């Protein structure tokens, strides 16, 4: 956007040399003046947007029609307001930090200030001497190791290498060393600070590239996993070759509610943990292992979850909390400070990606070569899964006949990296989309066109040899975002309504602002890969007029409870549905991660509800004299196929108590071959295309994302409003990584573990998010045909923003987050 050069005085009002402003064929040019950006190649029909009106934006004002609340309703496909929304708005919904118990003590954790150090001695005497301190625990209080020597009880989701307390070696900044319980939280913190720990600082290993040759910082070595992918002919060379080196910084999940919990000791020597866990059974089993107890002596009750974009609650927090409760015999409450939360929970893997794309002169991809390096941090966590995703999707949602990838995940003394929405897929999406932009520039092709020419479609092959049997409407998604009208330039808006890059009231000069448009398309996998058994169990019970669902799928705010309610409403016609709270006394539904809950837990709820429905309809069918399949339930009535006989559902349910339990699991997958990377490793894939419109102040290097248009294949829109909400969440998180979020470490120590310098997007930073289309091509293997929606937008948004900044400035954007000095012209 440039102000009209009224007096022609400022040369900045005109296009800068070398910056492709509105050049014919460029994305900017097409948007600003040329043919409508919606000139598609007519590839395939694009279904219209599926959301109710309030979720869409009107093009002329750029503001949503915000007055009307969303269409409520019941059953799948409607958008009922979540049941706990009002309680949350009133502040009476209990999160883990809100819990309280009689005789409560407060816990605090003593943490290491070094990224790599040997622990020579730990003296807890000074802490115990402080009045008000009830207990101090260290690794010696956990279950002993195999040799009888305390080893900190290492555990982990895949590899058991992360101790609760460091015993002899500290491997990352902030690693727990001991924990304290006292009668006041500040006493506990002071006592934790009073513990005398003698360290011998060691040279920290912070450069992932150096991890291969460096001495091992853990007995298991520095290499978590190497995953090659060999697909096609290695000797092939393309007519055009484009190379790039890309870097993705360390993003923190930064939920607004940090880790907190309450542990209550049980009379049988066990403990009840009230925490906001996303994997209650897994956490319970790990806690049992670390404490040396039988799993059934530990009960994990899931309290309100204050946001989860990654695995919550590292073992060093939950187990320490449980241990303090057992030792003191009192309930113990602990809430981590924001700094501690930044240091210890799982982050996104920082990545170095080196790519080489080969194409013919028409822009069709011939070969993709890639070397991917993920910095896994101090402990294994789920690095191996993230690596598998990165390696398998290294070429992106494109049809590429030859793909050669080497991917490594290495151990360093940096903070632990783990699962965070879009793990592995986000890093490669940024790299391969940047490569395509570079290729388009080299061939003088429209970036949209080069993506269309190479788009993968259903039935194509992943570089891992797996046939893409789920819907893969990549070209249709690109067409959908391209067809949306562009946001207007703010020239007609009053000056004081302009939201300039860098914020209102900043130093920005409107004349220095350039607008750029970029496209990106990406993919993520859903559910566990490589042979993970993804089972979920749910029970549905109907008594009288009310149904209950018992399923331990944790609703992290993403709406599983609402979905379960919709399913039961649809299947049984009962509108009053109670979702039981989650705890480990019930069978496992698995972790709330990888987009599983819609699939397996929703599937289990549906199956159980169908079983109850059969129990309900069977006697009625006998009474009506027909087979139960000929009865339908809709609008609260059971009717026969010919509409002649019927009965209200509630009447049929009088005095009945019906109950069923069901499981759901997807089809099995297999691990990737360790030498060739071939294997049917994924249950399903989800795709997302985005168009980002950014304003860049080319003098200051500041960026504002004006609008982000999203098209996603959702299989089936089970709750359109909630899908829109998840897309917004993913987009906002992606914008954060693209522009402002990075956890910076110097010598392994995090230097910005606070919201002052780790900047989250605020209401001034977020773009208008327009949903162009939610393509509903049902995935036939998925329950309801629905795909999970949360991860794909998060994985693709940073690439879209980077592409748009590239278009606006003409500078290569090789690094996330984008630094002002990289793009200021």
């Amino acid at each position, binding site marked *: 956007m440039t102000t009209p050069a009224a007096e022609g005085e400022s040369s900045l009002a005109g296009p800068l040399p070398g910056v492709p402003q509105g050049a014919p064929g460029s994305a900017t040019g097409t948007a600003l003046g040329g043919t409508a950006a919606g000139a598609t190649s007519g590839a395939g029909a694009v279904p219209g947007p599926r959301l109710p009106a309030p979720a869409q934006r009107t093009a002329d004002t750029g503001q949503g029609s*915000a*007055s009307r*609340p969303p269409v409520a309703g019941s059953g799948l496909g409607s958008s009922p307001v*979540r049941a*706990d*929304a*009002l*309680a*949350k*708005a*009133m*502040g*009476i*919904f*209990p999160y883990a*930090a809100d*819990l*309280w118990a*009689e*005789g409560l003590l407060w816990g605090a954790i003593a*943490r290491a*200030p070094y990224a790599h*150090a040997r622990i020579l001695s730990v003296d807890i005497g000074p802490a115990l001497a*402080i009045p*008000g301190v009830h207990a101090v625990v260290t690794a010696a209080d956990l279950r002993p190791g195999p040799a009888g020597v305390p080893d900190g009880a290492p555990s982990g989701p895949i590899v058991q290498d992360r101790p609760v307390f460091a015993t002899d070696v500290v491997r990352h900044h902030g690693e727990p060393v001991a924990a304290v319980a*006292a*009668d*006041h939280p500040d006493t506990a913190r*002071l006592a934790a*600070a*009073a513990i005398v720990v*003698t360290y*011998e600082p*060691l040279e920290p290993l912070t450069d992932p590239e150096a991890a291969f040759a460096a001495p091992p910082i853990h007995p298991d070595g520095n290499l978590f996993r190497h995953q090659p992918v060999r697909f096609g002919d290695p000797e092939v060379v393309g007519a055009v070759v484009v190379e790039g080196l890309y870097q993705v910084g360390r993003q923190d*999940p930064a*939920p*607004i509610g*940090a880790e907190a919990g309450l542990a209550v000791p049980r009379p049988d020597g066990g403990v009840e943990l009230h925490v906001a866990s996303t994997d209650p059974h897994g956490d319970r089993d790990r806690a049992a292992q670390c404490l040396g107890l039988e799993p059934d002596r530990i009960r994990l009750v899931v*309290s309100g979850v204050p946001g989860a974009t990654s695995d919550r609650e590292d073992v060093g927090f939950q187990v320490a909390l449980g241990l303090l409760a057992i030792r003191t015999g009192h309930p113990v409450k602990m809430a981590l400070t*924001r700094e501690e939360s930044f240091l210890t929970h799982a982050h996104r893997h920082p990545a170095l990606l080196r790519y080489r794309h080969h194409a013919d002169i028409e822009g069709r991809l011939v070969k993709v070569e890639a070397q991917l390096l993920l910095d896994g941090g101090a402990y294994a966590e789920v690095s191996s899964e993230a690596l598998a995703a990165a390696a398998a999707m290294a070429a992106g949602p494109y049809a590429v006949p030859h793909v050669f990838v080497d991917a490594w995940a290495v151990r360093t003394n940096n903070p632990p990296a783990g699962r965070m929405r879009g793990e592995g897929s986000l890093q490669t999406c940024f790299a391969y989309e940047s490569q395509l932009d570079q290729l388009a520039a080299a061939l003088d092709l429209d970036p949209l066109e080069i993506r269309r020419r190479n788009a993968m479609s259903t039935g194509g092959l992943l570089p891992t040899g797996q046939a893409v049997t789920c819907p893969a409407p990549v070209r249709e998604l690109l067409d959908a975002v391209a067809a949306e009208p562009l946001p207007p330039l703010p020239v007609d808006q009053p000056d004081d*309504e302009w*939201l300039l890059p860098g914020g209102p009231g900043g130093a920005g000069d409107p004349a220095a602002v350039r607008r750029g448009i970029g496209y990106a398309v990406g993919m993520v996998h859903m559910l566990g890969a490589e042979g993970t058994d993804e089972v979920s169990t749910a029970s549905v019970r109907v*008594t009288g*007029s009310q149904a*209950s669902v018992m399923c331990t799928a944790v609703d992290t*705010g*993403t709406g599983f409870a609402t979905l379960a309610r919709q399913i039961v409403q649809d299947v049984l016609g009962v509108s*009053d549905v*109670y*979702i039981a*709270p989650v705890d480990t006394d019930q069978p496992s539904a698995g972790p709330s991660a990888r987009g599983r809950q819609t699939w397996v837990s929703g599937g289990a709820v549906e199956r159980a509800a169908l079983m109850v429905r059969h129990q309900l309809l069977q006697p009625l069918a006998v009474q009506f004299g027909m087979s139960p399949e000929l009865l339908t339930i809709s609008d609260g009535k059971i009717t026969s196929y010919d509409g002649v006989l019927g009965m209200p559902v509630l009447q049929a349910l009088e005095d009945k*108590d019906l109950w069923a339990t069901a499981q759901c699991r997807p089809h099995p997958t297999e691990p990737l071959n360790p030498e060739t990377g071939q294997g049917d490793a994924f249950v399903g894939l989800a795709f997302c295309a985005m168009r980002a419109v950014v304003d860049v102040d080319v003098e200051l290097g500041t960026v504002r994302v004006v609008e982000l248009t999203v098209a996603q294949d959702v299989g089936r829109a089970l709750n359109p*409003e909630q899908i829109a909400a998840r897309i*917004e*969440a993913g987009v906002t998180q992606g914008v954060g990584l693209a522009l402002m979020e990075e956890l910076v470490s110097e*010598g392994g120590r995090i230097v910005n573990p*606070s919201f*002052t310098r780790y900047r989250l997007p*605020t*209401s001034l930073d977020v773009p208008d998010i327009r949903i162009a289309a939610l393509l509903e091509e049902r995935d036939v293997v998925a329950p309801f045909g629905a795909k999970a929606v949360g991860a794909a937008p998060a994985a693709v948004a940073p690439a879209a923003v980077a592409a748009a900044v590239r278009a606006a400035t003409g500078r290569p954007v090789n690094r996330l987050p984008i630094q002002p000095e990289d793009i200021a012209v």
Partner: protein
Amino acid sequence: MTDFLASSAITTTTTAHGLPGFGADESPRATYTLRVNGVDRPVTDAWIGESLLYVLRERLGLAGAKGGCDQGECGACSVQVDGQLTAACLVPAALAADSEIRTVEGLAADGTASDVQRALAEHGAVQCGYCVPGLAMAVHDLLERNHQPTDLESREALCGNLCRCTGYRGALAAVQAVAEARAEEAEEEPAAEAPAPAQAPVQAHAPASVELPQQQHAQQPQHTQQRQAQPQYAYQSTTGAYPDAPQQDYQAADPGLYVLPHQQTPAPEAGA
């Protein structure tokens, strides 16, 4: 801090964070009364360094204001002190003794959610919900000062509330919806003041009288009654009106007041 690049250096640190410890006995204490949501709430023998956020949550049982950063950056702890939107985590509670404090629990009139809270719930601003009490306070504060905020003004007013689960679209939509609704009501009753539950006399919030628009039942189904002794959850409704929240019994020491039982008993004995 030793230069740890000299890898053979051995260092002894007195503490993990460089602070000397001192006994809790010697810490200075204060007794004061806070006027919260129109009700006088006494606080006895509390360490003077406790923040208003801590006192509200842990001593007075008003857990609506949430802690997200303890630095005043995230806005989850927003309350109004003498009408000014403030980060409660940055206010020493003892110094707020002469002020009128309003929390998210005080936004509701007679136990019903305010129009802002209902609008936030209906427009999709609530996902995990942790930031929403702070947002509710910020939106109330904005609409008290500015009856017809523009989009930019709304964004500026809400930029102090961080949300990780949404893109703030629901909150911005709620601002517009409430502003329009209030303007319509003001037109209908030009003589009266623009109705704002914010200005209605506030009382201590009693959960038992809260209504939800879609509730059909008031009782937890019998087959899900819980099993073992549970801790007292002081902050939770007992009516079963919120099916997604744990159903626990709450015993009020005094109906209408949230005095935690443990304030009446001596502190647990300290010992090793």
